[in-house]
């Protein structure tokens, strides 16, 4: 049952990856990266349910923090440059 859910989640990962590879500007790629990091947080929570380990929730929290920091730093780079 959980395998089916995880495969359905990979479908939307593939669609976001298409925009990440093709996107015309940098901002498109950053938006696609944001969506991919949010999908990865939810995928880690589902994997925690599949393997029945509570440790993966901490990994999901740290991954969400790193994705947020990456998006914010890229926004600052688009706004002001290095």
């Amino acid at each position: 049952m959980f395998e089916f859910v995880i495969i359905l989640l990979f479908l939307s990962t593939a669609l976001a990856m298409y925009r990440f590879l093709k996107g015309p500007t940098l901002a498109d790629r950053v938006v696609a990266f944001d969506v991919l990091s949010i999908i990865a947080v939810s995928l880690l929570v589902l994997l925690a349910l599949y393997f029945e380990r509570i440790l993966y929730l901490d990994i999901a929290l740290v991954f969400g923090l790193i994705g947020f920091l990456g998006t914010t730093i890229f926004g600052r780079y688009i706004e002001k440059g290095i």
Partner: protein
Amino acid sequence: MFYLGMIFIFLGIMAFFVSTVGLIRMPDILTRMQVATKSTTIGTILVLLGVACIEPSWSIKLLLLTLFILLTNPLSSSVLARAVKKAEK
């Protein structure tokens, strides 16, 4: 309780799918950002609610994760939208 959780997880994954289809189909960068942020937020909240229905003993950490997502996702979208708007001028 298990089937209720699976229904919530399916609804969340449907929201993710709608989000990524909108990410491909929308014509402009600002509309892409708007559809991506809103529906990924609701998708993550629904998936975490479903997991909390299946495993009720994890709900403290899942509540913390939901609060974190709910706090940071609109913030990053706002920073990005302001950067795009300022870079276009």
